[in-house]
C-alpha cells in the first residue's frame, strides 16, 4: 500500500484547502490514492468533533470503525459524519501507533459512538480514553486477543486469503473439525483454566448499572433495586440477546443490552474472502432483508470500481429493495404484535402476504431469504418470464388492500394503543445524538431517509414521501412502518410501470473483479435503517477492510435511554419496536 503520513513538509508543499485553513494544525487532507477525508491528530480529536457538530452542523455520526494497517505499525479510526438536512458526509480519521492505541472517546459529543467504540475496542484493541463503559461487546470476557487485527488467527485458520490452494487440483478432502478438534479451536489467555474461571464481566456489568436512590428523602416505603436478566433465552428477544435491567419495583431504572451470542466475526471472514464471495455472506446479516444488504454491498464495491449498472438493472434493484422493505415491515409489525401478546394471529396475516413476495424472490434469485441476487455492475440473472406480471399483480391489486386491512385491524385497536402510545419515547435530539436510523429516527420526528438525503441508485426519479411521525413512541414506530409500506408500494408501482428492456450487466460478469486501491463508504436505506459498508481495497483480489455499519446494532445504543422510567413489560414492546435482527447485531 502506498502510505503518506501528512507531515509538516507536505503541508507546506501544497496549498491548503478552505477547511484546512479554517482548522489549522487540526485538519490534514488524506492524500493517499483513492482515499478521501481528513486526518486529525488524536490530541485534537475531541475539540475538532465538538466544533464539527456545533459549528459545521454535522450532528449525525453515521459510522465509527477502525482499520489495522499491519505490518505498518499503525491503526486508524475512521468516522463518517452527516448533516441531518442531507448531503454528502464528512470523513475524518485519526492514526495511532499499533502497540499502544489510545484515542479519545467521542461519546460525550456523539453518544451514538458508545457501542461502536466498544466494538472497536473489542475487535481491534483500541482504547477509547474517557469512554464511560469500555468493556468487550461481541466477544466474551475471557477471550484472548482482538480478532479483527490482521495478525490474529481463528481456530479453524487455513490460509490468509481465499481461494485456498489445496482445494484444486489435488483435492485431499478433509473436514477442518477433524484437523482441529473441538477443544483445540479456542485459545485461552495464559494461565487460564476454563473449569476454575468465574466470569468477572457480570460483576463489572452490574456495577456499571445506574441506580436510583429510591428513598433519599426518608419518605415512603424503602424499596430495594433488583437486577433482572431478560434473556439470552427469551422469546421476546428475537434471538439470543440479553437485557440486564435494574428494577425499582416494576419500573426500569437502567438497562444494558448484552450481545455477541451470534458473533461469527463476519468482517474478518469478509477480509479472507474475495470481493464477490462476500455477496452471499451479506445475505446472512439481516436475513429478513437480504436484497437490501446485497444492494448496499454492490453499491460500495461499484463505487470503488467506478462502474454503474445498466438502466434495467437499476429498476430491478429498486423493485427488489422496496419489496424487501415491505417484507421486513410486515415481519416487524407481526412480531411487534406478538410481543404485545397478540399471539400470532396478526403475525400470520402479515406472513401470509410476505410469503407471496418471497415466492417472487425464489423465482428470481433462487432462494426465499438468502437471495444473493446482486452482482457488481449488474444482477445474477434477469427476471424470469411471468415475474414482472406477478409483481404487477401484487403491487397494484393484492398488497395495497392487505396493508390497509392490517392498518384497520391494528391501528385503532384499544389494547394496542394503550400498550404503545407514550411508551418508550425517544425525543428527536436524542434520536440524532444516539445515531439511530431508519424507522426509529423517523418516528421521532426527524425526516432523514438516505433515499432522499443522499439518493443512490435511481431513487431520485421516483415520487414518494419520506414517512415521518412525531411522537417518538412505540405506537409511532409501528405506524411509520405502515406508512413506509404504503410509500414503498408507490415506488414499486412507478418502477414496474417504467421498467425498461435491456441488458442487466455492465461488462462481462466476472468472478475475479479488479478493484482499484482506495476506500469507499456506501450506504443504503435498508428497512431497519441506514446500512453502511466501509470497504478498503489495496488492489488485491480480497478487501483489506470490510466493515458493516449495522443499523439494528447501532439502534440498540438508544435502547437503555428509551426504556428508563417505563415498566418492565414495556421493555419487550420497546425492543420489538426497534426491530432488531441478531444476525446483523452480532455479525
Amino acid at each position, binding site marked *: 500500500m502506498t502510505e503518506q503520513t501528512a507531515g509538516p513538509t507536505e503541508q507546506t508543499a501544497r496549498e491548503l484547502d478552505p477547511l484546512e485553513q479554517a482548522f489549522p494544525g487540526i485538519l490534514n487532507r488524506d492524500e493517499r490514492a483513492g482515499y478521501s477525508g481528513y486526518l486529525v491528530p488524536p490530541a485534537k480529536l475531541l475539540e475538532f468533533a465538538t466544533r464539527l457538530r456545533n459549528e459545521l452542523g454535522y450532528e449525525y455520526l453515521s459510522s465509527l470503525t477502525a482499520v489495522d494497517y499491519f505490518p505498518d505499525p499503525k491503526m486508524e479510526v475512521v468516522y463518517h459524519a452527516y448533516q441531518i438536512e442531507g448531503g454528502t458526509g464528512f470523513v475524518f480519521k485519526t492514526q495511532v501507533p499499533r502497540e499502544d492505541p489510545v484515542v479519545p472517546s467521542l461519546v460525550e459529543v456523539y453518544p451514538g459512538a458508545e457501542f461502536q467504540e466498544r466494538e472497536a475496542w473489542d475487535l481491534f484493541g483500541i482504547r477509547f480514553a474517557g469512554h464511560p463503559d469500555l468493556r468487550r461487546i461481541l466477544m466474551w470476557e475471557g477471550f484472548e486477543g482482538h480478532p479483527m487485527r490482521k495478525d490474529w488467527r481463528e481456530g479453524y485458520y487455513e490460509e490468509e486469503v481465499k481461494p485456498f490452494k489445496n482445494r484444486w487440483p489435488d483435492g485431499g478432502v478433509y473436514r477442518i473439525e477433524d484437523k482441529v478438534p473441538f477443544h483445540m479451536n479456542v485459545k485461552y489467555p495464559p494461565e487460564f483454566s476454563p473449569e476454575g474461571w468465574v466470569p468477572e464481566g457480570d460483576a463489572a456489568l452490574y456495577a456499571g448499572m445506574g441506580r436510583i436512590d429510591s428513598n433519599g428523602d426518608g419518605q415512603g416505603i424503602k424499596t430495594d433495586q433488583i437486577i433482572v436478566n431478560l434473556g439470552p433465552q427469551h422469546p421476546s428477544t428475537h434471538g439470543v440477546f440479553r437485557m440486564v435491567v435494574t428494577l425499582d419495583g416494576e419500573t426500569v431504572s437502567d438497562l444494558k443490552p448484552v450481545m455477541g451470542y451470534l458473533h461469527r466475526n463476519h468482517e474478518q471472514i469478509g477480509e479472507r474472502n474475495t470481493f464477490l464471495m462476500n455477496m452471499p455472506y451479506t445475505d446472512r446479516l439481516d436475513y429478513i432483508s437480504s436484497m437490501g444488504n446485497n444492494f448496499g454491498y454492490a453499491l460500495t464495491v461499484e463505487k470503488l470500481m467506478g462502474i454503474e449498472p445498466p438502466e434495467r438493472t437499476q429498476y430491478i434493484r429498486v423493485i427488489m429493495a422496496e419489496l424487501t422493505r415491505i417484507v421486513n415491515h410486515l415481519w416487524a409489525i407481526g412480531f411487534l404484535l406478538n410481543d404485545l401478546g397478540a399471539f400470532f394471529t396478526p403475525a400470520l396475516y402479515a406472513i401470509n402476504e410476505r410469503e407471496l413476495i418471497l*415466492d417472487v424472490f425464489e423465482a428470481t434469485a433462487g*432462494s426465499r431469504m438468502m437471495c444473493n441476487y446482486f452482482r457488481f455492475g449488474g444482477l445474477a440473472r434477469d427476471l424470469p418470464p411471468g415475474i414482472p406480471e406477478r409483481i404487477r399483480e401484487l403491487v397494484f391489486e393484492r398488497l395495497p388492500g392487505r396493508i390497509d386491512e392490517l392498518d384497520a385491524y391494528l391501528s385503532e385497536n384499544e389494547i394496542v394503543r394503550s400498550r404503545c402510545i407514550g411508551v418508550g419515547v425517544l425525543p428527536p435530539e436524542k434520536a440524532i445524538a444516539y445515531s439511530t436510523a431508519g424507522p426509529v429516527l423517523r418516528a421521532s420526528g426527524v425526516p432523514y431517509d438516505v433515499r432522499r438525503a443522499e439518493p443512490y441508485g435511481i431513487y431520485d426519479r421516483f415520487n414518494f414521501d419520506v414517512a415521518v411521525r412525531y411522537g417518538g413512541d412505540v405506537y409511532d414506530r409501528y405506524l411509520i412502518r405502515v406508512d413506509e409500506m404504503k410509500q414503498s408500494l408507490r415506488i414499486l408501482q412507478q418502477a414496474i410501470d417504467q421498467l425498461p428492456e435491456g441488458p442487466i450487466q455492465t461488462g462481462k460478469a466476472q468472478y475475479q473483479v479488479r478493484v482499484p486501491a482506495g476506500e469507499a463508504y456506501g450506504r443504503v436505506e435498508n428497512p431497519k435503517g441506514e446500512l453502511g459498508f466501509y470497504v478498503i481495497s489495496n488492489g488485491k483480489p480480497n478487501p483489506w477492510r470490510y466493515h458493516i455499519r449495522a443499523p439494528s446494532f447501532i439502534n440498540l445504543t438508544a435502547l437503555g435511554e428509551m426504556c428508563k422510567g417505563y415498566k418492565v413489560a414495556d421493555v419487550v414492546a420497546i425492543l420489538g419496536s426497534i426491530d432488531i435482527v441478531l444476525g446483523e447485531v452480532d455479525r
Partner: protein
Amino acid sequence: MYGIGILRGLAITIKHFIETYLDDLRWLGRRYYNPEALQVRQGPKARGVFTVQYPEERLTIPEEFRFIPFLIYDELEDGTKHDRCTSCGICAKVCPPQCIWIVRSDDPVTGRPIPEPVEFYIDVDICMNCGLCSEYCPFEAIRMDHDFELASYDRFAENIYNKAKLSKPASYYASVRPLNYAIDEAAIAEKQAKKAARGGLKVPEVQVDQ
C-alpha cells in the same frame, strides 16, 4: 366508544376465518391435495388459510430455485458417460465457503491434464447454496439442484458427496430446469460451431490457473 377498535379487529379475524370455508365451498371439497387448487391458494388471489399439507402437498419449485450443486454428464450414443466437467477448478476458486474439492489427474503419456475430474467432492454441510459455482462454470457442467430433502443417518462421512453421488445425467437437468437447459444447449452448440469453424475437433483444453 371504547372497544370499537377491538370489535372492528375481531370482524376482520372472523372474515379471515369464514373465507377458508367459503373457499372450501368454491372448490367443492377439493381445496386440498389438488395441484390446481394449490396454485390458486398460493397465488395473489389466495383467500383463507394458506398452509400446505406437506409432504402430501408440495409447493411448486420455481426453476431458479437452487440447492446443493450437481455435476452433469452427457449420455453418449454408445452408452458411455461423458463428464462435462473438465476439472478447470473455477468453481473451487469461486466457492465462498470453499466446500468444493477437485482431484485432477495428468495423462501418464503426455503429462498434460486429463479434462475429466478423477474425484469431485462437495461438503454439503458447508455448502451455502449460493449458486456461484454454477453461475461461473464455463463448461455448463455444474448446476444447482432442486432436491432439498437431504436427511441422512450419518452427519459426517455421508455429507461429503463424491463424484458418483453428485453426477446426474443431462436428461435430469432438462427435467428440473428446462429453460436453463435450453440456454445451455444453445451455448454448447455455439461453442461446437466455433470449434468446427476453426477446424478439428480438439478436446477442450483445461483452463490453467491465472
